[in-house]
């Protein structure tokens, strides 16, 4: 009897069978895998499983404790809901990518060492990139390309940090990091916060999520950022920097969401806002705030999934994604509207909905940690949340100026999926106990105190008042917002210019050195040698000697002219020379 089975294996190996099945069989199979995964999570008990030795270190695939189990639960549940939502999709590639993506998330969740974590992290990046590319339009392909590059950059930072960490501590175990401010610390942090979409490294999310497929974005909204939250909770609890980053994130997302016209991009900015709560909670680091982050992540996956599903349904049925082009859909899509609103109420932390029992834990955590400013700012962001997700978006999508669109309700499977998510949103809100029991630390928090309920309702309803009073100012405008992706979108032009012009010119120059210096120089030098040196000097020298002898010969030749007196003179001269030689040697 196996004592533990890694749910991620179900997805990763399960993906292999997908291309071979069709029709109803395939659909049944697609639903069975996540169901089995949920089952496997429910049967898990704490401990360390599936350790292997690889290049001399031990890899841990199954580090099971309360923290990983709670994320395991929500990931598998959401995977089931998402698959149901996507049942109608005929593109096998998307199903395979989704499975690999989910498998990657679960792999990260249960990883006990950095190496395993990294491998699954990269798997997630590539698999989710496919979901963006799968839309096959030029905008989607471009966005997908930027997405994968940003993730590769984050992955490389993470890899660098892991290696440095390993070199200094000789251990790959995944756990809280020493807050030593070392390069390894910051590199790993950077790698994690890229995936958590913390500004200024967040633009990939708002760039790519609205461009992905309708069903793909639902998955993406749920997994990448929450896996990042999970790893942050495990490795960086109490890091002060995160408190500030998180709070800024919460407000940043809200501000951009107010300005946004594209329905899904608005929700994407909203993800940034909500993850900001979670990141801040991690930074605060108390039991209460960490519980808050985790429970908020749990709830967020469900209600954000629901919101994306709802918006996606609208986009699918109307073909339009901009708020300026939508409106008046309440007449023909009432069920979608209601389900969406459940998500909206949940995210806004209305009492009786899931957000209420979770988000307030984070804010409470801030309050109890003597951080009044943080608590106030986070509460302000809550108001903003309700403002645009609970009020602005549905108002302009479903009510408002009638756009004349008469779309029908989406297919049944999508409605069922939304219904399941809605059910969980309400369920958690009304019965928070089961969730609280899953949380890593003991929970001493009671959300349903009188003051809490009235205060929350007050915030929310009076926000609504403000909304209706300032309605005119909120009308969506057909613009896009420039975000930090401006840096690499415009900046990349500069980079390409550099690579294309100066660098290439230099390289050509270097290559031509051979041409100029060697070939031309050598040829020049050798022709110099040939013409001048060789011909004049050496030849000249040789010729010179030859000339000398010729002249000598000419001179001597005179002596053999044939006249006797010349011969006599020569003989006399010769004998004098010989005698002299013998006399004086």
């Amino acid at each position, binding site marked *: 009897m196996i004592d533990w089975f890694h749910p991620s294996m179900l997805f990763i190996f399960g993906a292999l069978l997908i291309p071979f099945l069709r029709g109803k069989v395939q659909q049944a199979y697609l639903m069975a895998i996540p169901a089995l995964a949920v089952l496997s999570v429910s049967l898990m008990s704490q401990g360390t499983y599936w350790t292997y030795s690889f290049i001399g270190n031990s890899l841990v695939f199954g580090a099971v404790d309360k923290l990983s189990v709670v994320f395991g639960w929500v990931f598998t549940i959401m995977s089931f809901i998402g698959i149901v939502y996507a049942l109608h999709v005929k593109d096998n590639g998307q199903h395979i990518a989704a499975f690999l993506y989910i498998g990657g998330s679960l792999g990260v969740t249960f990883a006990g060492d950095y190496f395993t974590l990294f491998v699954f992290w990269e798997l997630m990046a590539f698999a989710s990139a496919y979901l963006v590319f799968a839309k096959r339009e030029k905008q989607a392909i471009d966005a997908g390309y930027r997405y994968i590059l940003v993730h590769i950059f984050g992955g490389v930072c993470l890899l660098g940090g892991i290696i440095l960490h390993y070199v200094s501590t000789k251990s790959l175990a995944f756990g809280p990091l020493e807050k030593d401010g070392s390069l390894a610390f910051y590199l790993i942090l950077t790698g994690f916060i890229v995936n958590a979409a913390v500004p200024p490294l967040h633009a990939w999310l708002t760039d790519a999520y609205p461009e992905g497929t309708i069903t793909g974005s639902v998955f993406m909204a749920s997994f990448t950022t929450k896996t990042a939250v999970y790893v942050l909770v495990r490795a960086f609890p109490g890091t002060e920097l995160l408190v500030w980053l998180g709070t800024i994130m919460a407000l940043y997302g809200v501000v951009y969401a107010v*300005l946004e016209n594209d329905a899904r991009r608005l929700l994407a900015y909203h993800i940034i806002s909500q993850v900001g709560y979670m990141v801040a909670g991690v930074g605060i680091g108390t039991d209460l705030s960490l519980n808050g982050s985790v429970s908020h992540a749990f709830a967020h996956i469900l209600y954000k999934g629901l919101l994306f599903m709802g918006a996606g349904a609208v986009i699918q049925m109307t073909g339009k994604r901009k708020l300026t082009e939508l409106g008046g859909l309440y007449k023909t899509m009432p069920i979608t509207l209601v389900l969406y609103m459940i998500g909206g109420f949940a995210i806004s932390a209305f009492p009786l909905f899931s957000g209420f029992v979770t988000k307030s834990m984070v804010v409470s955590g801030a309050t109890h940690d003597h951080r009044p400013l943080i608590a106030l700012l986070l509460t*302000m962001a809550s*108001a903003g949340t309700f403002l645009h997700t609970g009020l602005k978006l549905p108002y302009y999508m479903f009510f408002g100026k009638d756009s004349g669109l008469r779309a029908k309700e989406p297919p049944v499977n999508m409605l069922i999926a939304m219904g399941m998510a809605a059910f969980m949103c309400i369920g958690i809100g009304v019965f928070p106990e089961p969730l609280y029991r899953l949380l890593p630390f003991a929970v001493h928090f009671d959300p349903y105190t*009188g003051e809490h309920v009235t205060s929350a309702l007050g*915030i929310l*309803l*009076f926000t609504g008042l403000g909304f209706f009073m300032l309605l005119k100012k909120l009308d969506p*405008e057909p613009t896009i917002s420039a975000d930090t992706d401006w840096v690499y979108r415009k900046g990349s032009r500069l980079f390409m210019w550099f690579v294309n012009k100066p660098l290439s010119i230099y390289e050509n120059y270097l290559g031509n050195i051979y041409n100029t210096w060697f070939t031309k120089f050598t040829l020049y030098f050798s022709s110099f040698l040939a013409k001048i040196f060789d011909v004049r000097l050496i030849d000249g020298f040789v010729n010179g000697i030859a000339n000398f002898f010729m002249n000598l010969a000419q001179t001597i030749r005179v002596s053999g002219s044939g006249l006797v007196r010349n011969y006599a003179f020569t003989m006399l001269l010769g004998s004098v020379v010989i005698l002299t030689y013998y006399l004086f040697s």
Partner: protein
Amino acid sequence: MIKKIVDFIGNPDNAGKLKKMGYVSLVAVFLSDFFVHRDHAIYIWDKIPGWGAFYGFFSCVVIILVSKFIGHQGGIMKREDYYDD
């Protein structure tokens, strides 16, 4: 049944009735804040009844005004084909 409720809300003719219901609920919530126990209040503002209502309204207005301001004056909002050259 859902459709009926939704239609009711959406129908522009019912705007008057809806507004009345809205105001009633606002007042009710505001007043209810006076009746609850404030055991866990840590900060001074938590002790004020109606604080949530006030802060919610305030936040909403601030966010809308600030965002639109940054958007328009800060040069964040651009034409839709800004990146497409």
